[in-house]
């Protein structure tokens, strides 16, 4: 399957590259969009090949990143529009989806998107129970109950009069 970005026919004349996800699907992306990712830029500078295989990014995540890159490579859009696109882009996404996104943008070195996603994650984590954070980040609690109680005691101010959420 070959998926084009929305400007497909218009940019056909321009150079484009094919990016393959770990699921095997291929995405046609204009070079101007691809080079917004520092990693892809480096790969394109180093080799002639127009096919880039990303072994650790799945279909769904890659499609989102490419939508972002194509929007930001569009010279016809104002910076304000791009900024509101960024906000729209992260809003309403599941925490799990954001986790895959932040990992992908880190791998691809798309600094702006990585920041936007990480900021969104930090915002979601506001007023969340420690148990929620452990579950969402899939982290084993390696404190002994005594050690955890001690840490909570030291920062007692942080637990006073605060309603923490678990969803």
């Amino acid at each position: 399957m070959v998926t084009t970005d929305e400007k497909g026919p218009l940019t056909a004349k321009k150079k484009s590259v094919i990016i393959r996800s770990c699921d095997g699907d291929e995405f046609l992306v204009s070079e101007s969009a691809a080079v917004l990712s520092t990693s892809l830029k480096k790969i394109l500078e180093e080799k002639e090949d127009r096919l880039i295989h990303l072994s650790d990014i799945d279909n769904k995540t890659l499609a989102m990143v490419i939508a972002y890159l194509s929007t930001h490579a569009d010279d016809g859009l104002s910076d304000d529009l791009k900024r509101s696109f960024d906000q729209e882009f992260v809003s309403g996404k599941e925490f799990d989806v954001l986790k895959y996104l932040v990992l992908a943008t880190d791998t691809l070195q798309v600094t702006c998107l990585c920041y936007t996603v990480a900021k969104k994650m930090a915002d979601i984590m506001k007023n969340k129970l420690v148990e929620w954070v452990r579950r969402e980040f899939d982290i084993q609690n390696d404190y002994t109950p005594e050690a955890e109680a001690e840490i909570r005691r030291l920062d007692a101010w942080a637990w006073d009069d605060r309603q923490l959420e678990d969803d």
Partner: protein
Amino acid sequence: MESLPDAIVQHILSLMSNAKDVASCKCVSKRWKDSMPYLRSLFSPKSFRQPYQWQYPRCHSEPNGASNLESLKLWGVLMIQSPKWDVFHRLKNLEIVGASLKDYALSDALRACPNLTHLLLLGCEGLMSVSIDNPHIEQCKLDFYGAGNCSLTVNSSKIESLEVQGCSVIRVYETGRLKNLSISNNSGRVYLVDFGKLVALETLSIRGVQWCWDAISKMLQMASEVDSRFLIPCLEKVVITVRSPLNAEQKMSTLDSLIKCAKNLRKMTIKILQMKSNHSSADDFFEDICRFRYMNRKIVSIE
């Protein structure tokens, strides 16, 4: 999905802005606790409880503590003891709002931030004498509660903007870059202002219930020395109360300066209240004032 790499976790944690959330994330795991030194900005909400007020910054002065901190905002803290801070080399912006402070606690806190460029102290009380010696300070806004009798000294050659409320004695020696100066005192009196040459001054605002003659005339002189075009464009009406004939000459020169600088002044009322007439100089002074009124009779009236 496997858990995210440390670097990404640190990146996310560094974007949290509430100290309480950061503190609860320390409980997630040992690895997360060790990620905390990478925090960029701390924000302490107003609901800080007193016995714990320094708990958070203190946690961060563990080895490699919050040395990356660039901005620290403390709201509603009780700062009567010196904070146990390491040096925050990267800290540029310090804001303390609605705090109760002691002089030595503030000076120790300022000493821990050698590269500070922005300082904001809003609604702070308990200070008597403040000396700001951070050499990189550019913007400084100070607003003190209380009797308005605090004494302030600023020693920074980079100071560009200074706004002070609630100080009676203000000394700023290195003023080569000072563009914006605002001095007011809502509750106390401004006794003394001592500034270097105000060569870069663009705006000057002086407000307050009571200014000492000496201070106000010095202020006007300093500003007009710098720029002979110095004007007070908005002042239309001024009421001046004179209570004693002491320093008559200075008072007359201040009245003169006011007339000269305030081009749009339409009405100046001089109230002479409870003047002790047994003093021999009172008559002379009164004569001076009458002459002054005669010279500027369109504007000046005496009550």
